[in-house]
């Protein structure tokens, strides 16, 4: 067994298993700990400059990655015209840098502000390092190995699908430059760490809010058998 098999065949499954099992366990048995742990009450000025760009940047870039994974064909077609390719690449790079700027502000805020240091856990530092690694490698790749949106579909889409369909082909990753390998590996580390950290709040994004009625009224749970009124 070489590193390639270990890191890109065995580890992804370990990471996915941890992700699923711990997320379910924590949601059911330790729901109180699931929170975005906002610190806006304690410090808001730097949060404004960091949080908005980081969150929107990450959300949009992740959506881009997801689209490339799910509908690679349409990305290839879009990129067929060079102008559109440049447009996409530039937008993605700009988003990446915007997101990185936000993350740097947030990191600095977390390390320098006394109040924020009080609410910082060791796990917060771990995910901060992982996120920084992820975004920095991502931006580096976008600059050095052009054009990502072009080769992603022929390298990562097949690889990730091979993992998801239980026919892993780690060999696809082996010849890639180390930055790209690191970026990929870092993703699986983040996935494994997610359910142990505050990152779990990503999964609780409250989309249901768009549909529910304004008011929520709850009756005590009733045991019909014993209820004298039934």
């Amino acid at each position, binding site marked *: 067994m070489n590193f390639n098999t270990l890191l890109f065949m065995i580890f992804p499954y370990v990471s996915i298993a941890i992700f699923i099992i711990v997320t379910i366990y924590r949601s059911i048995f330790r729901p109180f700990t699931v929170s975005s742990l*906002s610190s806006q*009450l304690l410090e808001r000025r730097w949060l404004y400059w960091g949080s908005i760009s980081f969150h929107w940047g990450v959300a949009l870039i992740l959506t881009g990655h997801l689209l490339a994974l799910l509908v690679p064909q349409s990305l290839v077609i879009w990129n067929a015209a060079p102008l559109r390719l440049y447009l996409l690449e530039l937008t993605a790079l700009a988003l990446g840098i915007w997101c990185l700027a936000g993350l740097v502000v947030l990191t600095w805020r977390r390390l320098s502000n006394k109040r924020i240091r009080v609410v910082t856990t060791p796990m917060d530092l771990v995910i901060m390092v992982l996120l920084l690694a992820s975004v920095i490698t991502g931006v580096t790749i976008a600059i050095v190995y052009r054009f990502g949106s072009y080769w992603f579909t022929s390298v990562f889409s097949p690889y990730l699908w091979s993992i998801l369909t239980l026919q892993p082909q780690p060999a696809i990753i082996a010849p890639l430059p180390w930055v790209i390998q690191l970026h990929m590996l870092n993703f699986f580390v983040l996935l494994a760490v997610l359910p142990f*950290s505050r990152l779990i709040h990503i999964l609780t994004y409250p989309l249901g809010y768009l549909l529910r009625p304004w008011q929520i009224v709850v009756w005590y749970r009733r045991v019909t058998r014993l209820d004298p009124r039934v």
Partner: protein
Amino acid sequence: MNIRAQMSMLFHLDKCIGCHTCSVACKNLWTDRKGAEYMWWNNVETRPGTGYPTQWENQEHYRGGWEKKNGALDLRLHSRAKGLAKLYYNPALPSLEDYYEPFTFRYQDLFNAPAGDDQPTAIPISLITGEPLEIKTGPNWDDDLSGSNIYARNDPSMEDVPPEIRAQLDELERVVFNYLPRICNHCLNPACVAACPSGAIYKRAEDGIVLVNENKCRAWRMCIAACPYKKVFYNWATGKSEKCILCFPRLETGQAPACAHSCVGRIRYMGVLLYDADKIPEAALVPDSELVAAQRAAILDPFDPQVVSDARASGVREDWIEFAQKSPVYKFLKQWGLALPLHPEFRTMAMMYYIPPLSPVVSLIEDGLVRLDLAPEQHDFELFQRLDAARLPVQYLANLFAAGNEQPVRYSLRKMLAVRLYMRRKSLQQEIDQATLALLTDAGTNPAEAEEIYKLTTLPSLSERFVLPPYHREMTIEAYRDPLTQKGATGLGYLQPPARGE
């Protein structure tokens, strides 16, 4: 009709002495914890003043409550989609500075200081960082009008009071203030519930208590901005929102909430109100001047046989209907028309009620002596006829308790004055003259009612103030949970300590 019951508290402001016992009782019981140090689920403010958190009534800034948009009711804070877009940073959220940085003192220094020529001092330190801090403000920094040039002058409810009257309040011989104790209003149309993206906040149908399910709260903190009374707080240590729970564990065991039970002025009353849930949208949408009337109309008459049978059909328990008939809050609110909601213009339909305070007559300085600004004979009759001579401007009280509509405030003040004059005549002169009787009629009351109001206002026993229905918890949780599984655990609540997530 869809009838539900509401536990409601009534504050008789004429009796509040501003002692803060209520706040301390609440703090000791519920918020004396890490992350909750700055929270005052019950606080007492001096009015005029800016309150806690500072300027909480200024909804231009905090965007709390509901507003009418194109004939419909909408959260002032956000539409659903915009709410989701602002999860990462919520501009309307108060910052800690709007409350105050919680502090304690380093008392150990008093014992550990080395021998020296000076008295050792205990310096103030922050309860968040533990570092020394300079105390700049506190939850009741403007108590009894201290710093009134910063606080009382900037009271949002003073804004449309005419400048002459505002200027009067600055003159020493006309200075006036009253106390305003506040808790969560457990609203009928709560903005906190509507604003929560996770759906973690809910209203209990049985008693109307509004609670945060902390297992569902994800710290999106929209409730904090959306509550116009600023009565949801964010626990910075656990990353969860918290609010007044109306001491439901006490209510469920037949005890009044700690703030009410400990109240030194005995200003607080508690009882059941029945309301029609179907009428809420309608009552919350009427023009400002009709808000008080519409809210009173949504509270139903528990003696009406139709209401009683509808209540039964809607699932209100038999004994709760009986307790609604005995409710002191119902008497003050509906039978006597004395009680008013706080800031009905926020349109959340607050369910805690207030009896506005009477205040002394404006006085003048003449030849270096203070005298009342009234004709020398029959002082009290004069005030009755000329409420505008009272020191607290009626317009101001109307801004606080009736969305600017003076009429219900005048009605309430006149009635209370009439009761006072009547009782004074009765105890001093034994017989009641025609003028006093006419006064009662004028104020929309009669001797029998006046006596009742007097009794419930000044002489009520504990059981007359708190008319608490049985909760029948044995019919709910205990019926399907084996009590032995809970043995050794603390209450029925946490089986795990409420630890902060990573």
